[in-house]
């Protein structure tokens, strides 16, 4: 649930807390991945916190988001529970997907989270579809797709935006331009200078905002949401941001310089927002320390929860294929039950 905005002091503190939570969650996820406790890949959101939180603050609690492979930040911004997220990363039965999804597939449709996605560019059609449901049933919601600068080159992204704009669906497409798709810089993937310029191709408004400034992201998404909810159709927003870690944990990062990384860190979104709240007398250094300590505790608790949670029983591999049981899967499951799966 996204029950915070940036309108009041309490809301702003909540937004800062979420940014800190994301950073702490992903910092710890990186550690446990390096230790080998988290299998697979993890794509960390560190550096991009203002985009996810600014966006979700501008959305209503019931709105949908379709996420990406770099989705932990979106989940926390949207209000998913770090305990269940961390348990999912650890492959535990109590995780959001009962251990079947992992980092790249965390989903909670009831919270409006349509899923992280391992396929670059696959989220926008899903958001268009969610917007179609909303519009068909005349519901007071919007659907927003996050996508990367890399994803913006995908054909299905074009199809999704074209369809949503042709049908005036209540959708928002938010490009997180973190300057690279894996190791390839954005200039080598696109001919346009600003990715939001592509909006012109759909006759919808497009705008580029500073993704290191949570208030800028928030305002743009607010406007996009207004348009969507008014029946004016989708909006394309590009947030310029940067990921501090490698594309995945363990990436050598020979495609960028330390200076470049430092330049972005100098504009760190959390530092900047914190400084503004202090300037506004809404936060003191001491209160910030306290908030940071609380966040660390929240994530420490999540890790403890994940550690303590049970691994799924191998039998659960056969669950959730369909809404009902089909004889084929029954048969495999039964064999596994009797012989531990040896005769597959």
């Amino acid at each position, binding site marked *: 649930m996204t029950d915070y905005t940036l309108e009041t002091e309490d809301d702003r503190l909540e937004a800062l807390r979420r940014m800190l939570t994301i950073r702490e969650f992903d910092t710890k996820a990186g550690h446990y991945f390096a230790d080998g406790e988290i299998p697979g890949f993890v794509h960390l959101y560190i550096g991009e916190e203002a985009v996810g939180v600014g966006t979700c603050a501008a959305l209503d609690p019931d709105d949908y988001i379709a996420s990406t492979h770099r989705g932990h930040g979106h989940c926390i911004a949207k209000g998913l529970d770090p305990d269940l997220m961390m348990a999912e990363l650890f492959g535990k039965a109590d995780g959001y*997907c009962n251990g079947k999804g992992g980092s790249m597939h965390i989903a909670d449709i009831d919270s409006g989270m349509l899923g992280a996605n391992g396929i670059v560019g696959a989220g926008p059609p899903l958001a268009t579809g969610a917007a179609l449901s909303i519009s068909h049933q005349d519901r007071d919601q919007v659907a927003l797709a996050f996508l990367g600068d890399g994803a913006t080159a995908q054909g*299905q992204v074009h199809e999704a935006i074209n369809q949503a704009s042709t049908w005036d669906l209540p959708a928002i497409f938010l490009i997180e331009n973190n300057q690279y798709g894996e190791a390839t810089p954005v200039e080598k993937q696109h001919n346009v200078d600003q990715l939001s310029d592509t909006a012109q191709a759909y006759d919808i408004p497009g705008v580029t905002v500073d993704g290191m400034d949570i208030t800028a992201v928030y305002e743009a998404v607010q406007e996009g949401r207004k348009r969507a909810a008014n029946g004016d159709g989708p909006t394309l927003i590009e947030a310029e941001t940067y990921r501090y870690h490698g594309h995945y944990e363990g990436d050598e990062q020979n495609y960028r310089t330390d200076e470049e990384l430092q330049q972005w860190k100098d504009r760190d979104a959390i530092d900047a927002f914190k400084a503004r709240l202090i300037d506004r007398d809404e936060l003191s250094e001491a209160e910030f320390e306290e908030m940071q300590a609380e966040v660390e505790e929240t994530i420490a608790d999540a890790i403890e929860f994940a550690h303590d949670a049970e691994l799924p029983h191998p039998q659960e591999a056969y669950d959730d294929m369909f809404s009902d049981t089909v004889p084929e899967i029954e048969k495999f499951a039964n064999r596994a039950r009797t012989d531990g799966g040896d005769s597959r």
Partner: protein
Amino acid sequence: MTAQAELDGQETETMTVREAIRQGLREELERDEDVLIMGEDVGAFGGVLEVTGNLYEEFGEEQVRDTPIAEAGYVGAAVGAAATGTRPVAELMFSDFMGVSMEQIMNQMAKMRYMFGGKTEMPVTIRATEGGGMGAASQHSGTVHTWISHFPGLKAVAPGTAAAAKGLTKAAIRSDDPVFVFENKMIYEQKGEVPTDEDYITPIGEASVEREGEDVTVVATQRLVGESLTVADGLSGDVSVEVIDAQSLYPLDTETIVESLRKTGRMVVADESPVSYGTHAEIIARAQEEAFFSLDAPIQRVGTPDTHMPFSTPLEQEVLPDGEGVQNAIEKIV
């Protein structure tokens, strides 16, 4: 169940496969306003193969939508819509276009429920036309249902009769899982008795014994169901042929097929998809797993001989599996 038993006591009407599908769609649009048909020219134009017909006039744009020519986009939108409270029915004009939308099919539609630990429903129906025989050449004549039947998380049906065409279309729309309805375009004009009851459905996962026999079992799909029935009639007196419409490819009604095989000891599998690594092989594998010791002869496959569908009539006729092929296969083993 036998086809006759299925229809016994039902009020029926004679109609074509095309009309049967349309009636199924109409009844479901009527029953549930969250059912949304979408696809290329399915609306005002009535469908390139005229299946949706006047549904657009009857139900309006809200329920029958023309999409941009963007299979990945609208199939993806159907997935997103299915996860968020509506029941989309997307049409792929020709199943050959499925490749364009395959990403959304294999990585989103098929996997979401599983990957999310059951946290979503996926009530989406994909209707796709298949089959050669009209000189539409290789990119508009394919039979690709094996891909879908093979892919975990998807259900696939391929009716061979008008009754099944309606019953399976309705079952697909009511299912909370992704179901592909493969319509062979050469049988759109084939007539049959179709129950008029609005709640008549053909359960997914049930085969239909279209004709009972003692000597050999023909498991057929789509157009080859009708052609096999003709062959069976022609052979009657000499050979007693049992013809089963598999109807549902995944899940597959192994039980009905195996039961028949136990009785006849001989089997021919007739399906238009390419022969190698395919639907035939799966049916045969299951048959031998369950009834190896009932077999009296090697099981035969009738299908497209691993080519694409060529354009010119003699070429197309050469590779298109038909009744003659079924008859040859029967004669080889009885």
